[in-house]
């Protein structure tokens, strides 16, 4: 109990004193997860809208795949990205400029995009499917093109779409397995909140681990608060 209390006090002190090591880690987490979320949004929102609005053969199969993707264990994603990017892997030997190397922030972004995109697709799909199907027909009757209909329906489902982004962010900011495997927890380079907590706990630097944990908890809380507020608003 005393360890926890001391850690808490020391953690808050580190946080508010602007400890450079601590803030560098927070910055890296924000950068990696922020970019990953942006990419997931660009990929996931249109795909989710498409799956929620159009009927085509095999749609249910694709939906089942998306739902499976929403529950992907991060370590499995880590393994997959590792195999993709490794020098002896699938994409690694091709030396394409857009394929990042392992143990870089870019590799971590790849892994987090794979984790967050199915969540964005799934939640967007549900939000868009929740809009009155009669609306699409009436918009078409008013002269809307397919693109205009999709845009308007997404706008009608805007709270749900926002929730999809928050869910995506919540999943990647607190994820440790994938970033550990493909990032490698290199100090000052690929160390993020979750991997740093693991390391500092092992080292016995509890105050540091607690400071990092506090940040993560606060972030998680803010994200979940935003999500429940928004979902309540939609009702």
């Amino acid at each position, binding site marked *: 109990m005393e360890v926890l209390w001391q850690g808490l006090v020391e953690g808050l002190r580190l946080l508010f004193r602007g400890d450079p090591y601590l803030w560098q880690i927070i910055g890296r987490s924000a950068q990696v997860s922020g970019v990953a979320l942006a990419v997931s949004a660009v990929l996931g929102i249109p795909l989710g809208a498409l799956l929620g609005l159009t009927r085509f053969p095999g749609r249910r199969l694709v939906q089942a795949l998306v739902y499976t993707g929403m529950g992907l264990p991060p370590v499995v994603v880590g393994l997959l990205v590792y195999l993709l990017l490794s020098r002896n892997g699938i994409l690694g030997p091709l030396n394409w400029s857009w394929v990042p190397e392992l143990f870089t922030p870019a590799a971590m972004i790849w892994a987090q995009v794979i984790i967050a995109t199915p969540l964005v697709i799934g939640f967007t799909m549900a939000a868009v499917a929740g809009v*009155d199907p*009669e*609306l699409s*027909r*009436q*918009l*078409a*009757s*008013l*002269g*809307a*093109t397919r693109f*205009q209909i999709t845009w*308007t329906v997404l706008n*009608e489902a805007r709270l749900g779409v926002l929730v999809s982004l928050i869910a995506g962010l919540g999943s990647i900011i607190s994820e440790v397995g994938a970033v550990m495997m493909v990032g490698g927890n290199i100090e000052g380079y690929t160390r993020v909140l979750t991997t740093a907590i693991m390391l500092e706990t092992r080292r016995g630097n509890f105050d540091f681990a607690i400071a990092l944990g506090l940040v993560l908890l606060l972030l998680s809380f803010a994200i979940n608060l935003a999500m429940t507020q928004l979902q309540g608003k939609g009702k």
Partner: protein
Amino acid sequence: MDEVLYTLENVQKRYAGRTVLAIAQLQIRRGEILALVGPSGAGKSTLLRLLNFLEYPDAGTLAFQGLPVVPGAVPLALRRQVTTVFQRPALLSTTVTRNIAYGLRLRGQRDAQTEIAHLLELIGLTELARAPARALSGGEAQRVALARALIIQPTVLLLDEPTANLDPYNVGLIETVVRQRNQEAGTTVVLVTHNVFQARRLAQRVVFLLNGQVVEAADTPTFFTAPRDPRTAAFVRGEMVY
């Protein structure tokens, strides 16, 4: 005034193998108010969807202003001359004004404030201009749906049971606005209703549909006083026809 807008020849529409519409011949003229009457399942709403290019015939030819209506071949500009007010209006979760302006925004036009104000006055909702659409009653929502259809100044206004669930006040108001628009702007109106009294009040010509086929098409006075087909006579008298 006798210019033909729509020409239908042997038009068929099937759902899941069942033929719901089989119209041998029908013409809709520019500037008329045409009522489509008939019992539920007669194909009235299906016909409206074809006239609005929301669906396409499975067989036969449908032409609008001389152009054949086939999937992918209806230019957007032509498609945008026709709009429908549906039985149950689906409005956007925004204000009344923005709902009415929607069709203009789709066309990349700026909101015409005077026109919106004029329509709001016409439908008696000036005071609710900034109210959220979801706060409206059924009748108010339907009036907004009518206004958002009228703002795009359609050549053809299709009405699918627009007053089916409404009280007499709203029915009267909507009928007045429709009649006025027809007289002042020459808007062609096709009205689906199973209320023969409404057909009689509004329409200049009435088409009786039964099992997807046109039983009779006649001028309103003839339709009600001297129908040719005994089934029409029975329907007008309020007897069930199957």
